[in-house]
Each structure stands twice: as structure tokens, then as C-alpha cells.
């Protein structure tokens, strides 16, 4: 079983559209949405939810007003500026529990926090594991680790070849959690200065965690000079620029229709995504 994650650094480069197309192209796989903050893959894959679980993670401090003597020690010691006027701001609280340890009248307790939900679902392309982090919650990295673990378990028990994950934007906690230990990362970029800048940082991250990567340049024809820069950069880094996909409204139309791009177009776009998937499956096999 091999694990592919699709990342980009910059948001909006087309990760989810490409993963949805791979869902239609790959034969034996589990799909996994590691963007637990703003998940979108389900909008295209239209899953039927089979299991719906609560995600309990971390704690939040609660002050018992009756016991509190207003000594203010908790407020002085809290590094996260989460206590004001003898009340805890649950959004700022990091759940470290320091305040509950030092409160002289023991007025502070730590309360378990339900910070989201995760789902095992069926789609017409196979199983999908996705999640929904609660609004303004922490621990997205842990939730990502959890959905990946469930996806791997299903792939192993059903003897499937691939776990294909849609990654979150950025390079921080949830991205690290999506990336660590995967077989291959596909980096989807676009020929803009922001796209190039963000590609370099996410590639550094792949190297940091020893994950091999290849690149797909989406909307390559919006700026062909920049596309050449990306190709040169890939060459200099020993990276394969495995596909160049032109800008086409069929990406947006497919999102509106709720179907993968490869099923909504039979022309060059579909062909380039198909050959990208072939390159990836060859790399994963080798």
C-alpha cells in the first residue's frame, strides 16, 4: 500500500480538483481529506456517510467562581493571555493545564474538549475519510493524523493499493501531519510569483521530512515565462515537472456540477491529468 499526498503551499492551485480526478482514475484506493479546516473534497465526491465520530482532543481550563479567591496568579502565569477578569477565554486557552496546577484554592479544572468530527463515507469511487474541525479549534494536526490512520487501516484491511490524500495549504502543523511518512508528495503549483515562492517552501518541507516529491504546474498558460521559471527550478532541484495543465473553466464547471474534471472533459485537460496519474502510479510502483 502506497500513500500519496497532494500539497501546494499556496491555496487555490487546484489540489482538490486533481485529487477528485485521481479518485476517478485510480482503481484500488482509499481517499482521504487532510484539509480538516476547510474540507472541500466531499463536495465533488458526494459521499454517503457510513460512520460519524466525535473527535475529542485537548482540554480547556474552567474556573469555578465559587472557589476562586481572585488572587490573579493564573492570569499572571498564563503565557497565552487566555485569562481575564478571572474567566478563561476558551479560544485563547491552549489547554496546557498550568493554571489548574498552580491555583491555590484549586478552583481550576481542565475540561475535555470536543474539537470536531470525522467520518467514514462511501463514494462512487471508493471509501473516503474526511473530517470537520470545530470552528476556531486547535489540534488540526492530531485530527489529520487520525484521518490518515483510519484511511491506512481501511486500505490494509480491504487490501487496496493506495491512500490518496488531499492536503491542506501552508507548511505548518496540519501539513506536517499530512506529509510525514507518505510515499510521495505531488506539489501542485501555478505560474505566479506567489505560487513559485510557496512551492519552494513546501518542497523544503518535503526534504525536511525525507518525502520524495514531483510537481504539477496548473494553469500553466496564464504566464508562460513563470512556467519556464518553474520548469528550470524543478530541473535545478532534480524534480520532475510531471504535468502542465492549461487554464480552463472546466475546473470550475466541474466543481459546480460536483464531478471530477476528468469526467467532465474528454480533451487535453483530461489527457494531461490521466498521464500525470500514470506517472505517479509508475513512481509509486517503482
Amino acid at each position, binding site marked *: 500500500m502506497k500513500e500519496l499526498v497532494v500539497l501546494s*503551499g499556496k491555496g487555490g492551485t487546484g489540489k482538490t480538483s486533481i485529487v477528485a480526478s485521481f479518485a476517478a482514475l485510480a482503481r484500488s484506493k482509499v481517499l482521504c481529506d487532510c484539509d480538516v479546516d*476547510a474540507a472541500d473534497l466531499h463536495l465533488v465526491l458526494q459521499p454517503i456517510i457510513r460512520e460519524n465520530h466525535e473527535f475529542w482532543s485537548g482540554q480547556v481550563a474552567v474556573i469555578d467562581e465559587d472557589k476562586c479567591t481572585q488572587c490573579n496568579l493564573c492570569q499572571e502565569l498564563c503565557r497565552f493571555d487566555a485569562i481575564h477578569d478571572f474567566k478563561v477565554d476558551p479560544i485563547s486557552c491552549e489547554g*496546557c493545564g498550568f493554571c489548574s496546577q498552580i491555583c491555590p484554592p484549586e478552583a481550576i479544572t481542565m475540561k475535555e474538549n470536543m474539537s470536531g468530527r470525522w467520518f467514514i463515507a462511501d463514494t462512487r469511487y471508493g471509501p473516503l475519510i474526511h473530517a470537520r474541525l470545530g470552528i476556531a479549534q486547535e489540534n488540526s494536526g492530531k485530527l489529520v493524523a487520525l484521518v490518515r490512520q483510519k484511511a491506512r487501516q481501511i486500505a490494509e484491511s480491504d487490501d487496496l493499493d493506495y491512500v490518496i490524500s488531499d492536503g491542506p495549504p501552508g507548511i505548518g502543523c496540519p*501539513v*506536517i501531519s499530512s506529509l510525514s511518512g507518505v510515499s510521495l508528495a505531488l506539489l501542485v503549483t501555478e505560474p505566479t*510569483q506567489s505560487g513559485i*515562492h*510557496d512551492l519552494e*517552501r513546501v518542497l523544503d518541507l518535503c526534504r525536511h521530512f525525507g518525502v520524495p516529491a514531483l510537481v504539477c504546474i496548473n494553469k500553466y498558460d496564464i504566464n508562460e515565462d*513563470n512556467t519556464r521559471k518553474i520548469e528550470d527550478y524543478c530541473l535545478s532541484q532534480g524534480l520532475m515537472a510531471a504535468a502542465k495543465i492549461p487554464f480552463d473553466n472546466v475546473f470550475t464547471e466541474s466543481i459546480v456540477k460536483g464531478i471530477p474534471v476528468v469526467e467532465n472533459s474528454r480533451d487535453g485537460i483530461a489527457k494531461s491529468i490521466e498521464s500525470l496519474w500514470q506517472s505517479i502510479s509508475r513512481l509509486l510502483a517503482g
Partner: protein
Amino acid sequence: MIISVASGKGGTGKTLVATSLALSLKDTERVQLIDCDVEEPNAHLFLKPVITHSEAVCIPVPKVDDEKCTYCGRCADVCVYHAIAVVPKHVMTFLELCHGCGACSYLCPEKAIAEEGREIGIVESGYSDGVDFAQGKLNVGEALAPPIIRKVKEFANHDGVVIIDVPPGTSCPVVEAVKDSDFCLLVTEPTPFGLNDLVLAVETVKELKIPCGVVINRAGVGDGKVEEYCRRESIPILLTIPLDTEIARLYSNGITLVAGMPMWKSDFVRLFEKIGDIVHERTGRLER
């Protein structure tokens, strides 16, 4: 006044809106742009600022004095992040897991734990063509963006207009960037992805009790459901930017919209006036 520019979904045009809004106001206001997308900061590519100040952001992590340590295990018991473990005659620290809460050092009965800074990123400030600038940058391989966001927000000049470029998403980095704003501008695109993530972003700013309005970017693609949603929820649509190859080309070359197409300046000035009206009306109402 602090205006944050957020989106839920990435790549909808936050940086485009934030940079052009800042540049459109520089003749009439003292304006500052703070890039809080510390994982992938991009505003500098457009504003090309001169950086005059740079400093490391460190989180305080434990340093155990083996001479004083009695291996009692109190530090490991209080660390909820599992960043410190005690085995017979040895204390192990896993500093990349440490959030810097300070509990281990404070609670050590032998006072054997000091704290030292561990760099996780940098913050920089400077200026660009009439706009004050600051940004944070997370070191590659580090997980914790919020401490850098907190630090770069300390540069905020509260006497002027502060525009905050927010990271995508809805979780802790977004909350850290958006909180304490007077207004949050949500940039979206008229597609099912844009709408799905806009709804999440609206819930986040509501949780923070911050008024918001919407900018629809790449209008003309997709469908009309974002507009329907905004009407239903009484969220004002304050600016609409069409899908336009010239706008995309400028963006791809790191040129701001108002520098490349100056006729847009008046639209951004009007956007700022509308935000001002909403904020003042709200403050008036709260005072009453």
C-alpha cells in the same frame, strides 16, 4: 482601525485585496500591512518592502540542570504536550512538541529547569512606498504558527489603519490573526468550494464577534449561490472583482491590482469607506 482580510479557502485573492486596499489608502491614511500568513507569506512579493528590522521568534523551552534534578517526574506529569519524559537517572526533552507554557520550570520542586529560547521563525518590519509593512515567517519544519502571528501583531500601529493578511482556513492560526480586528473582510469566489469555506469563515468571525463583509473575486465563473447566501444571512457584499485575464496576469507577475490598473483605486477607497461606516455604526450601537 484593524481590518483583517481572511477567506477560509486558499487562493481566493486575500493578498490581492489586502495589498491593493493598503496602497489605495496611503495618500489619506497612515496605513500598515501586516502579513500574518506566516506559513506562506506572499504580500512582500507585491509590496517589495525595504526591511529595516528583523528578529527571531523563540518559544521558551525547558533546559534541565542534571546537577539539581532528582528525577522526581513532576515535570513530565504536568506537561500535557509530552515534551518532557523522565526515565531513571535521565530527563528527555522533545522540544519540537513544547508549546512554551512554562509549567515544568515553574513547578519543578528542585528549581532544576531553566528556560531557553528556541527559534521557530522570524518577524520583520519595514516600509514600502508609503505603506508600513510587517510580516512573520515560520521556519520550514516547524509546526506552530500562532506564536509568530502573536509576535508580528505586536508591530501594529494602532493610530492608523492596519490591514492584516490572514492565513487560509478556520483554525487556530486564523483565530490568532483575526482576533482583535474591528472588521473582517472575507474574500471568496463564486463556486461551491468558495461558498463552503466562506460559510465556515463566517462562523469563525461570528464566534469572535467581529463584523464582516464579503469581497467576491473572479465573479463570472461558477454560480450565484455565494450571493444568495450573503443575501440570506444579511452579509454585505462590499466589492466584486471579475474574472479577468489582465488581473490574473498582473497578479502572476507580482504587480498589485491598483498599480497595474489604477482605475481600481477608487473602488478600494469606497470599500474602505463602507467598512468605516459599518464599524462606526456598530461602535455607536454598542455605546448606546
